[in-house]
């Protein structure tokens, strides 16, 4: 059991971790998620007593790490796979660590076998691939057969077989009643591995809940609406009407609309009211990855901007037209319910006022960290039927989607993207 209370770490005036309190319980894999630079590794180092917290404290089994008797027999950690002397053979590296905690040399050969490095045991770790380095680091963590295990980004650089192996290893370790604390920046990986999630952003706790809770609390539902492809004006009309009714509408690449903020029956009513036929009206759930992105987007330190390539472009000859962008390409942020804003800053307005500010046809997203109350969540279970049902299904023979529809319904995009 790892327990952090009010953990805070400052480097100069930069706060890496702020007032972090959480518990990591035995018998489960606890995922530690956060974007790059959110303080995951700093927290791990504080747990291991390598960094001293500026405030607060963290204990393992009730003791601060530095006070643990024979710590290596209780706690095993993989912090940085590259943190080995490249000139030392893998076996000697592990042997020196084993001797530190009085572990017999026999155990070294055992863990080498567990991680599958027995054939390269005598080779210098300098020549190891990233994946082999990770395996060596995992071997070091397993040496003392510890009850508490910490892994910082263990699947980095592993091949699919290796990722699968790590996943099963962690589940097996947790099933034996051990405390397993794994950091990652990949939500999808954690969704498969972890039982419990601790999400941090900018060093602060964003979520501490089980994976199932996280999914139900964070994966915003949305409705997919498709109007007849042959009549793009209907799409525009519906977009206007839905926005007016308080919904957020995001055009999808294939010409459908992604609607949030309105229950399905209401969308159908509005479509009916504005005399728009629907070809599709279906409920959807955003993926866990999207939920995680939405939760942390306000807390991302390093974010790329759209590459304008202005520094490479030659001045256009007078009278020449700039090339038109291809619809749907180079537009940032097709993934998350809070839709892109104008220009290359998809989330710039996310911190601003919710509601539909002058944010173009997409509407504006809710503030990050506080996902909007999901209108479907309450209203979905009683499935609508009869008059509120989706619009009558059209004949099956549907024309191929018109490639031109996206730029037509979305007049701001081509200009804004450049």
């Amino acid at each position, binding site marked *: 059991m790892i327990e952090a209370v009010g953990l805070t770490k400052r480097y100069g005036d930069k706060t890496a971790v702020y007032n972090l309190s959480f518990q990591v319980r035995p018998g489960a894999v606890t995922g530690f998620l956060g974007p790059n630079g959110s303080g995951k590794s700093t927290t791990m*180092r504080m747990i*291991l*007593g*390598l*960094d*001293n917290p500026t405030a607060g404290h963290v204990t393992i089994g009730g003791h601060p*790490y*530095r*006070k*643990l008797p*024979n*710590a*290596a027999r209780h*706690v095993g*950690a993989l*912090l*940085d796979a*590259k*943190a*080995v*002397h*490249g*000139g*030392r*053979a893998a076996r*000697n*590296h592990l*042997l*020196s*660590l*084993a*001797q*530190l*905690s*009085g572990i017999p040399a026999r155990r070294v050969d055992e863990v080498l076998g567990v991680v599958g490095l027995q054939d390269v045991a005598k080779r210098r770790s300098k020549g190891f691939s990233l994946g082999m380095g990770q395996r060596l680091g995992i071997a*070091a963590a397993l040496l003392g057969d510890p009850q508490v295990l910490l892994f910082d980004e263990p699947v980095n650089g592993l091949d699919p077989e290796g990722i699968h192996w790590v996943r099963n290893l962690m589940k097996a370790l947790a099933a034996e009643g051990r405390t397993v604390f794994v950091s990652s920046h990949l939500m999808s990986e954690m969704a498969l591995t972890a039982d419990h999630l601790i999400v941090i952003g900018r060093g602060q706790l964003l979520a501490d809940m089980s994976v199932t809770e996280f999914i139900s609390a964070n994966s915003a539902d949305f409705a997919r609406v498709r109007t007849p492809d042959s009549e793009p004006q209907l799409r525009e009309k519906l977009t206007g009407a839905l926005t007016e009714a308080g919904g957020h509408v995001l055009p999808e690449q294939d010409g459908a609309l992604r609607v949030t903020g309105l229950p399905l029956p209401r969308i159908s009513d509005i479509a009916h009211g504005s005399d728009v036929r629907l070809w599709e009206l279906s409920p959807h759930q955003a993926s866990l990855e999207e939920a995680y992105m939405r939760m942390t987007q306000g807390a991302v330190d390093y974010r790329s901007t759209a590459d304008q390539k202005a520094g490479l472009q030659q001045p256009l000859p007078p009278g020449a037209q700039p090339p038109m962008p291809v619809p749907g390409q180079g537009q940032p942020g097709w993934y998350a319910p809070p839709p892109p804003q104008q220009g290359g800053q998809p989330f710039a307005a996310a911190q601003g006022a919710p509601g539909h500010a002058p944010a173009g046809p997409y509407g504006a997203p809710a503030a990050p960290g506080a996902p909007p109350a999901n209108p479907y969540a309450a209203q979905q279970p009683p499935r609508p039927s009869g008059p509120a049902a989706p619009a009558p299904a059209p004949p099956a023979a549907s024309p191929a989607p018109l490639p031109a529809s996206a730029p037509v319904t979305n007049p701001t995009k081509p200009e804004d993207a450049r």
Partner: protein
Amino acid sequence: MATAQVVRSEWTKIRSVASTVWTLSLAVVVTIALGMLISALSKSEFDGMSERDQLAFDPTFISFAGTSLGQLAMIVFGVLVVGNEYSSGMIRTSLAAVPRRGSFLFSKIAVATALAFVVAMITSFATFFLGQAMLGDLKASIGDPGVLRAVIGGGLYMTLIAMFSMGVAAMLRSPMLSLGILMPFFFLISNILGNVPATEKVGRFLPDQAGSRIMQVVTPVDDDVPYGPWGGLGIMVLWVIVSLIGGYVVLKRRDA
């Protein structure tokens, strides 16, 4: 018991990297070869020396001429033993396994010092006897007054230089930085400070200037150095203690 484990682990670490063998054998070869060369040159030039120089001729000290270069290899050894933990990031793995940082650092230094001591003593005796062999009839005998002290002192000097470097590396936490400071310091700056009249009085208290006094058997004419052979070595020991305490404090206080 816990310390014995750390010592054993440090021994595994030190014997399992190639740099240990390279730096130590370089120290042996350079010290002996240069000592023999300078001894041979001194013998052939002895007849051309002034009477004053002939009077101050110190065959023991001459045979230790190679230490000025050989000590640089010892410095590299000391720096790499400690500094590699930092440059490789191994320090975090090590400290996660040994949360008591004092016992980690001093076990490491103890193991490296023991190894350096053995190598330095062998080097010192070898360089003395081989150097004397080059000096022919000018040679000193190990039984002469002060000579055995000088030869043992030569080994102690090389050991202390390595220890001093370990302390500095623990303070600076980077092998490159440590070498960048220690190498020019011991190769150039200390010699300049010790030989320029204006700074001579300060320079002679620097670790290598004070420590190398132990290798002298014949005191130079009108010598005004305020300490004797063991006093000089004592000054060097003080420097070593300061650097080790500094390294310990840095390791204890700072984040790994």
